[in-house]
């Protein structure tokens, strides 16, 4: 196996007295599509937020693409990362949020071109051409000049995906991308994510409650509970014959109403 693109080494994350991640070890291979499932409060979204550097960690080390994420190497020792280091590392990652978090005062096109122009120094023209390609990819090329509030939730989330892709990340993080959507709009977003998963060598981390989709799209599924990774495995194995009792309980609870 090649060098993992993401490696958590005994990572501890606390919110005050509450331990959200408890000495977590976790690796992801380049190009791998990994789904993270688990009950709310299990720390699964925290994994993504830490990777996106939205939340700091208290202990342990995270390696992304061979570099420490929250640390810098200086004189052979790891010291807390500077903002400049974090800025460099963030270029490797893109994130899609549960609440979309589009910029409401920017057009769809501007939402997508803002960061490539301001951060990557892309020319306006190049950024626009690239944005239009991405809008084509998510099926929204005809909505480029609209503002987010003029779009449906599903369309907004597809813009969110295009916006993250515009920064050409190596790793895409999806934080419950369909949880805020009306049921009839979930499909169009999952279709786009599925297309990305099948056609691109992006590394993808997906936190989701859509079990059927997780099973279909992932190379590996991880079940989190109470700050620990209880079980991981290929989707067919994890969903049909989970090893851990806790996984069985959870899957029974979430899958039962659908049958």
């Amino acid at each position, binding site marked *: 196996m090649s060098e993992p693109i993401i490696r958590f080494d005994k990572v501890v994350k606390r919110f005050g007295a509450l331990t959200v991640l408890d000495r977590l070890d976790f690796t992801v291979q380049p190009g791998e599509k990994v789904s993270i499932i688990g009950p709310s409060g299990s720390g699964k979204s925290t994994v993504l937020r830490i990777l996106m550097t939205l939340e700091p960690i208290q202990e342990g080390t995270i390696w992304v693409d061979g570099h420490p994420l929250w640390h810098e190497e200086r004189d052979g020792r790891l010291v807390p990362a500077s903002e400049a280091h974090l800025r460099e590392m963030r270029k490797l990652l893109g994130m899609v*949020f549960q609440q979309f978090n589009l910029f409401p*005062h920017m057009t769809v096109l501007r939402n997508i071109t803002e*960061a490539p122009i301001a951060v990557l120094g892309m020319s306006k023209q190049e950024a626009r051409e690239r944005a239009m390609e991405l809008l084509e990819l998510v099926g929204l090329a005809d909505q480029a000049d609209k503002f987010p509030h003029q779009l449906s939730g599903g369309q907004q989330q597809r813009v969110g995906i295009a*916006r993250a892709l515009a*920064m050409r990340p190596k790793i895409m993080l999806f934080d419950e991308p369909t949880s805020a959507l009306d049921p009839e709009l979930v499909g169009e977003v999952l279709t786009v994510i599925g297309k990305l998963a099948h056609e691109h060598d992006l590394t993808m981390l997906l936190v989701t409650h859509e079990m059927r989709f997780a099973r279909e799209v992932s190379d590996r599924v991880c079940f989190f509970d109470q700050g620990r990774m209880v079980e991981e495995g290929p989707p067919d194995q994890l969903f049909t014959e989970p090893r851990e009792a806790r996984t069985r309980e959870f899957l029974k609870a979430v899958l039962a109403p659908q049958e």
Partner: protein
Amino acid sequence: MLFGYEWVTGQGDLAFAASILPMLLLGLVVTIQATVAGFFIAVILGLIFAALRQSRFRVVRYVTGFVVEFLRDTPLLVQLFFLYYVLPEFGIVLPAFMTGALALGVQYSAYTSQVYRAGIEAVPPGQREAARALDLTERRTFTHVILPQAIPRIIPALGNYAVSIMKDVPILSVVTVLEVLNVAKIIGDQTFNYLVPFTMVGALYLVLTLIASYLVRLLDRALPKTGLPLR
């Protein structure tokens, strides 16, 4: 006689009112000038206070917080007297109008600083997170993500304080500024008719406040709620 105009007495209240209207209007001009000057100072100084309260140095934040609280919790008249009577003892002599505008501006900067802060804090935290995920710099995030969304909330609130400042301008009469109330009082002192000039001041204020409030409401409605658009 005042400002070159003569008042007409003994021909009824209406003639008297008509004769003093030009004087009161000249006073009203001073009132508006003081409002504009005071508002200008409050808008700038408030922004400085708001920025200092975000400082990464705790001492700066605390000192600024104390100053703002002090300005907010002491009467305007006390601050005015301090500037007018105490500053000259230290060799700083300002014209009465300047002192008055400064007092208004300083007092209201405590309020406007809160307006800025509330406007910025009302922008959902997800906006900052999205900006961070896209690797935008702190400065770019502030100027292109936070401010455009905060400004439509800030401007109407500032407008309401402009109206408040206008209503506080008569306090400047105690330091001899010839704003509209002071003019009315001088007319009353000279003609022994206080009813007509003071009633007219009230009416003028009512008209001015209604117009100003209407403009603020128009402005509020004209500003896009989702933020100043960027295309």
